[in-house]
């Protein structure tokens, strides 16, 4: 560096390379070539002198000594000599002599260089110039997110991609998000878009019982393996023409992630650090111990107005003075939710080294995250590293390798099931009786410091519910649930330019790639005896579970790209052919033991009583071929074609191969000569029609075999039975998409954007577990093609680049919104009938209906109209005795129906001819609209209450710049969807022994009360039937993040040898504007089910401070 500066100060003059003119004669291989390298100041030391062959491969080399001399043995006289030195122009000469005298020229003296290059699509298909892309595709450079506190990419994408709806699953560490691109287009297949990292699909196989509609941890793991800091850009491919090269894998859209690679130049080191504090938002407020016991007493009293109903329940009667030994443990006001919440901290360290010379580029990056949850005892450690090396064997041959490793250690809370429901810390804190103590107390109420568990001798009413839940604080501290995973993904790649590297000539390049994906995951769980209320012989006492899963996938890909050149430069053609072969195997093992000798042995390998021991192997294979071609005429008429042929192991011989074509075009109107003259302010206007078909395959292997499985046997003989119906007719689900896009840009593209309109038709819908008449001997077919579905929608995306500029101040913005409507257009009646549930007459259940020409996700239930004030009817209110608001049948005009004797008719629930007091509504019970005015509340009164699918989803953001200060904010929103707030339902039903929300203080208690909430009834009545009382509008606007960043000026950094120094502070999830009363209106929705909020841990709020520096 000092040399270079010296030269610049002296103001050097260009000196021509002086060559002694010697008569040229042929040199021979083996001759010694020698010479001297000098510059204006004398000999150049350490200059590179090499012999290059025709393919620019280095065949011999030397380095100049202190006096600038070099020598080496010539390999081939046809080769060339090249001399390079940092800061000088490269000199290339033919071998026409044996002694060279070379004078180097300063490279910095070049006055002007014009580099013309087109920005090209950074994806795994053809490198089409961005302008000529004719498919629905939206990409984002990660530069936009620099300094953001994201753990995974999906958080960053939220609200940025039109038509991509991302919903956080829960606030637990490592629980991920679920994504829907352009709505739901399949019934119960996987609906998550495909994630492709550097052209590689993350495949680890899946076990048979993996439920794609609810679980997203796997997807999350996939994203967790990519550190957002390693990402260079993300492209979202939306329509069939764009995803065509991914065939059936990309049927739900594709998210292509490209990671950073090394760049030629000086080694650069970047370090960044972020510190984030997270906390749980205020959830539902709960009853304290006193209010809870009061409510419970009412619950027991109300059903039969029995004063003594709760007399024997010691736990709620505050029996002091030795009457009840556990008195001190049941006289508290414990806030269980507060006891399990905390402030979580997250630290992210990230270091990257990148650089490279002429022969090789490299980038080495490593990140370490340490995170504690906003729920106690959750901890996540993650180490990621990614090494990218590019080695240029010659100009035409490049070898590249990319090795990524991720290690994750997630210490979760122990999760268990009660009545087949998963219970986590927070959910059990919400329902645990608040008069119960966390720690055991002595007779005077002093804490003994040991966790208190309910005794098995607890009153019988608590045995099946409260007793089943572990003390959440004790569970967090004593039990163990650790998940560690390793993912190693080495990639080796060879690029070979078969026809040279001259851009002016036809080019043919080959790329061969092999990727290994090694994934291991271990789950270790331990539940100590201290937590168990069932004693030593309980099957949960000192229970250890070890689960190991390992998989290895190998993918080889061969790609040939051909770019012919024509004499007429108006024609441009590119084409690509690719073949890929994937195979992989996996095994999982699960061991569970209980009754381990002491709580210090926590491994299932120790001798104990084995309760579970199984293993399951898996394997997967696939082949595909893709051909795609791109043609552009005059750079403004574009035509793209692609064809994919997918080979699947999941279909029988006849249906094994699926062909998926796509065709798209683009007309760039704004490049027409007439256009620029007439509408100069429109800088871009292009039309993009597209069409394509993609396929979808079932999730499981070996469906087309008739399988024989071993049974338990009879007597002393083993048994075998045919376990499935062989699927001979099963074929690919096909999704045909028409897409019309318009790209536009105004004022030199300072404002730009696009609009997409699409229509997707899914035919031969794959349905899992299609019910069969059981007279066949089987209850279901594992899959069948059953019908058709249609999705219609539009997307709008607008970006503004420095639209307001005033001095140092400028503003950027982005807006996206999208809408998707789906409906079922074709389905066999019997399939519909088997999908649709009957009204089960139970509290809390909503009907789900799948109907033709209706969207999925409709919510059906009763209409809630408040609470009956009185049990007895009278036309005029008699305070405390009777009134007009009483449960009597009324006709359509609202008049009370009277019989011959002038008696009123009670409102009954599902009257079936048997007089039953249980079925009569009373004062304090919920009023449901009697739609058909028959005096009965039954299935005929169920009405449509709304859709769980949003009308519009999207986001918008602003970026304000003032000098080096930037304020960046991003919002996302959803509008017009309904959510079943089951969390609130469970917290307001007063039907069980669970703790309830403070809202129930406004409940009906005595005749005449005019209250919004019905009376408390323990296991009785119909006060929480599925009704619109718990169906809420899920519209919201969330401030996803806001960030203030400042980067120091480069001049002032130079003194410290730094190149870049940024500071930033940001806040995530700062506020949500919504009418929704639950913790978080972002609720996941599945295939044909309805959106239900089950009181999952709401997403944590967080504040981050960070620093990035590089030198």
């Amino acid at each position: 560096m000092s040399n270079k500066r010296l030269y610049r100060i002296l103001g050097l003059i260009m000196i021509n390379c002086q060559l002694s003119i010697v008569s040229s004669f042929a040199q021979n291989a083996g001759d010694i070539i020698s010479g001297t390298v000098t510059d204006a100041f004398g000999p150049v030391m350490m200059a590179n002198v090499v012999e290059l062959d025709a393919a620019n491969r280095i065949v011999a080399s030397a380095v100049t000594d202190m006096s600038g001399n070099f020598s080496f043995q010539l390999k081939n006289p046809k080769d060339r000599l090249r001399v390079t030195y940092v800061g000088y122009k490269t000199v290339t000469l033919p071998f026409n002599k044996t002694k060279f005298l070379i004078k180097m020229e300063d490279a910095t003296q070049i006055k002007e260089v014009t580099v013309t290059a087109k920005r090209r699509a950074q994806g795994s298909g053809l490198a089409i110039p961005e302008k000529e892309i004719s498919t629905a595709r939206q990409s984002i450079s990660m530069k936009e997110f620099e300094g953001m506190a994201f753990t995974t990419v999906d958080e960053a994408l939220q609200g940025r991609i039109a038509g991509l709806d991302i919903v956080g699953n829960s606030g637990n560490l490592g629980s991920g998000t679920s994504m829907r691109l352009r709505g739901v287009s399949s019934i119960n297949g996987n609906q998550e878009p495909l994630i492709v990292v550097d052209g590689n699909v993350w495949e680890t196989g899946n076990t048979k019982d993996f439920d794609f509609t609810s679980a997203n941890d796997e997807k999350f793991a996939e994203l967790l393996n990519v550190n957002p800091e390693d990402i260079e850009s993300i492209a979202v491919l939306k329509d069939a023409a764009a995803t065509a090269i991914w065939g059936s894998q990309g049927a739900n859209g594709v998210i292509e992630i490209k990671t950073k690679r090394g760049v030629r130049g000086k080694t650069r080191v970047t370090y960044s650090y972020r510190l984030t504090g997270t906390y749980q938002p205020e959830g539902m407020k709960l009853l304290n111990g006193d209010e809870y016991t009061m409510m419970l007493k009412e619950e027991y009293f109300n059903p039969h107005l029995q004063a003594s109903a709760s007399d024997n329940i010691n736990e709620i009667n505050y029996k002091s003075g030795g009457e009840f030994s556990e008195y001190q443990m049941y006289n508290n006001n414990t806030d269980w939710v507060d006891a399990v919440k905390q402030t979580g901290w997250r630290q992210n360290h990230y270091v990257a080294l990148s650089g490279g010379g002429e022969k090789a580029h490299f980038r080495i990056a490593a990140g370490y995250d340490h995170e504690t949850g906003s729920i106690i005892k959750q901890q996540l450690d993650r180490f990621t590293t990614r090494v990218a090396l590019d080695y240029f064997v010659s100009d035409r041959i490049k070898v590249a390798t990319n090795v990524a490793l991720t290690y994750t250690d997630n210490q979760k809370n122990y999760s268990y099931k009660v009545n087949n429901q998963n219970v986590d810390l927070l959910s059990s804190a919400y329902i645990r009786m608040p008069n119960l103590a966390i720690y055991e107390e002595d007779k005077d109420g002093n804490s003994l410091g040991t966790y208190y568990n309910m005794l098995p001798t607890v009153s019988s009413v608590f045995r099946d519910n409260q007793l089943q839940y572990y003390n959440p604080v004790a569970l967090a501290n004593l039990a163990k649930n650790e998940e560690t995973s390793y993912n190693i993904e080495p990639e080796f790649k060879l690029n070979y330019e078969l026809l040279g590297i001259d851009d002016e000539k036809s080019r043919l390049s080959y790329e061969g790639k092999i990727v290994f994906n090694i994934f291991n995951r271990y789950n270790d769980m331990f539940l100590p005896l201290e937590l168990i209320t069932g004693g030593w012989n309980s099957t949960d006492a000192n229970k250890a579970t070890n689960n190991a899963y390992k998989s290895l996938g190998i993918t080889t890909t061969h790609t040939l790209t051909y770019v012919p050149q024509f004499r007429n430069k108006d024609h441009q053609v590119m084409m690509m052919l690719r073949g890929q072969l994937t195979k992989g195997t996996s095994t999982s093992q699960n061991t569970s033991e209980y009754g381990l000798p002491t709580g210090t042995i926590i491994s299932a390998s120790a001798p104990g009583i084995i309760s579970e021991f199984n293993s399951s192997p898996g394997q997967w294979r696939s082949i595909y071929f893709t051909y795609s071609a791109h043609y552009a005429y005059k750079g403004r008429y574009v035509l793209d074609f692609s064809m994919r042929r997918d080979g699947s192991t999941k279909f029988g011989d006849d249906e094994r191969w699926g062909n998926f074509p796509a065709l798209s075009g683009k007309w760039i109107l704004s490049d027409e000569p007439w256009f620029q003259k007439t509408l100069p302010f429109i800088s871009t206007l292009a039309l993009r029609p597209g069409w394509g078909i993609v396929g979808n395959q079932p999730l499981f292997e070996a469906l087309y075999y008739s399988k024989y499985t071993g049974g338990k046997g009879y007597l002393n003989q083993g048994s075998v039975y045919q376990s499935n119906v062989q699927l001979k007719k099963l074929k690919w689900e096909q999704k045909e998409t028409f897409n019309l896009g318009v790209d536009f840009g105004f004022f030199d593209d300072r404002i730009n954007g696009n609009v997409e309109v699409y229509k997707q038709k899914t035919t031969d819908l794959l349905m899992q577990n299609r019910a069969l008449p059981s007279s066949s001997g089987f209850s279901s077919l594992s899959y069948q093609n059953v019908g058709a579905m249609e999705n219609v929608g539009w997307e709008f995306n607008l970006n503004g680049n420095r639209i307001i500029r005033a001095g140092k101040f400028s503003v950027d913005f982005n807006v996206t919104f999208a809408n998707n409507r789906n409906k079922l257009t074709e389905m066999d009646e019997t399939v519909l009938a088997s999908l649709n549930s009957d009204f089960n007459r139970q509290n809390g259940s909503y009907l789900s209906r799948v109907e033709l020409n209706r969207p999925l996700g409709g919510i059906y239930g009763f209409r809630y109209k408040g609470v009956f004030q009185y049990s007895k009817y009278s036309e005029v209110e008699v305070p405390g005795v009777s009134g007009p608001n009483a449960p009597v049948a009324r006709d359509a005009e609202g008049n009370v129906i009277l019989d011959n004797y002038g008696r009123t008719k009670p409102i009954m629930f599902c009257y079936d001819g048997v007089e039953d007091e249980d079925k009569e509504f009373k004062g304090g019970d919920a009023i449901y609209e009697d739609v058909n005015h028959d005096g009965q509340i039954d299935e005929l009164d169920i009405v449509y209450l709304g859709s769980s699918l949003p009308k519009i989803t999207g986001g918008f953001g602003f970026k304000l710049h003032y000098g080096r200060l930037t304020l960046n904010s991003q919002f996302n929103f959803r509008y017009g969807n309904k959510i079943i707030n089951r969390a609130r339902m469970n917290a307001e039903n007063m039907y069980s022994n669970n703790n309830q929300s403070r809202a129930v203080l406004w409940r009906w208690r005595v005749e005449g009360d005019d209250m919004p909430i019905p009376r408390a009834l323990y296991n009785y009545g119909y006060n929480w039937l599925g009704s619109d009382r718990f169906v809420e509008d899920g519209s919201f606007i969330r401030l996803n993040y806001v960030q203030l960043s400042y980067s120091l000026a480069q001049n002032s950094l130079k003194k410290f040898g730094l190149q870049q120094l940024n500071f930033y502070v940001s806040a995530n999830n700062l506020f949500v504007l919504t009418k929704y009363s639950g913790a978080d209106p972002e609720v996941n929705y599945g295939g044909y089910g309805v959106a239900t909020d089950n009181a999952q841990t709401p997403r944590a709020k967080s504040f981050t401070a960070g620093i990035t520096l590089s030198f």
Partner: protein
Amino acid sequence: MNTKIYNKVKAGALSFLLPLSSFLLTGCSDFLDVLPLNDVVLENYWTKKSDVTSTLMGCYESLQSEDCITRMGLWGEVRSDNMKPGVASSQDLEQLVKENILPSNSFCNWAVFYQTINRCNIVINYAPQVQEQDPNYALSEMKANLAEATFIRSLCYFYLIRTFRDVPFSREPSIDDTKEYRVPADSFNVVLDNIIADMEAVKDDAQLYFRKPNPDRLKEDAEIDNTARVTRPAMYALLADLYLWKGDWQKCVECCNYVIKFKQDEYEKLLKRRLQNDVWIFNDIPLLMEKVENTSGNAFTEIFGQGNSFESLFEITFDEQLNNGNRNTYLGNHYYNGGSTQSNGRLSACEEFYEGLPTSSTELFNTKDCRAYGSIYQVGTTQFFIAKYAANRVVLDNSKSNWTPSYNWRSSNYANWIVYRLTDVMLMKAEALIEQGSDHFEEAYSLINAVNRRAVNAFTPGTGEVLKYDDYKDSKENMEKLVMDERHRELMFEGKRWFDLVRTARRTGDTRELAKTVTKKQLTNISGIQIRLADPNALYLPYYRNELKVNPYLHQNPAYHTGDDSDLEKN
């Protein structure tokens, strides 16, 4: 696009791609054949004898499953006058007992019977082709296997028609998704005729013994092998039952004769020496004695406690020694809650059969009828538990004038489920004889009396007998009542009573008697139930709701028609 250019390009591209694609395409199809790792596939199965026997065991195993055995027990018993709800009954069970049956009741789900039928169909379909391939698989063995499968299939259909009347009938195995599975129901008589024809065709193919008893050895239990699987006498027992329902009395008697003759011969030729302390000849028929030395209850202990007794013809056998996890959960859940002390199951007995014993006789049981004590266990004054199968031993002390039974309760659910036993067949024959007219009354009475004499320990004809021929011989009605009562006493809680009532009602075409009998146990809504049962359709269960949803050709039993079912029928 300029075609010349295009062709040039295409040719160029192809020339480069050929080597690549040929490399990739080699063995593509094989590559995509991924065999399941945990299962055998059809292509590799059905090659040897053991493949047939294993699948045949799969048929038996399906009979053993909780769903199947529970329905066998409940369908044949729960709507009769024998049973009341016990503790912690499920809602579905209570509704069955209260005659408030809806198509959504899970006990109307017949899936497991068709699962068993399909397993049998598969064996019957593939066994002949194995026999051609495997030289070790003799034709006679194959035929015997087919006979077993036919028995199990016919038994399942028999349960189905007795419970639902008209049901879909198929002998075709369900193998792949090209078969039409939505099929209409065939009528009771069509199915019955078909299964009779099936059974007739193979009745003599079944093995007589799986292990021939050795008369020279004093201790041996070959019975477990010969009654846990279907033997020729069991084939005849089922056929007798089928003919009884069909009303072909002559054929029924012939089949019963075969079974009775078989047991007589077996006793004389093979087992006399071994069983001389246990068996007594009652009216020419060897039966296990209740009284051995000073205590009674021996026959109960052998038949129900130990299982696979000398009298047995076919039992679904649960073997505690094998520990393969197969348990009789029906009995475990419904008759008793396993444990060393008896606790009530989901069902309990009706008090009228027992109340007053052992001091005074009830309408059904004589004070000295051992079967009363073996069937019902009185706890305190108001609770009557089911003792049959729940106890593995009943001891009645003959020295006492009033019996106070003492029981050994089964601690785990390994009781067998008896499908046919000798006295059942004897009473079937008696029933068929009575229907043939008064000429046969005496012979019928002799059979009934033999069964009764055993139960009351009347070893010598004329002494200690409870029944008197003169009371019954004058009218067919009396004889019919006698045989029904004897069946009631003998086969209580064995899954027979409701079917006996239905068979009688079908024969007379009048359900009033049945309605009167079964409503005796009801506390409320008695007249409502009687009105409902006046409709003969109401003797059968409705088709399960989910079944109707997926099979549009199935029409709901008119007794259970509701508005929304008719919607489905339109399709």
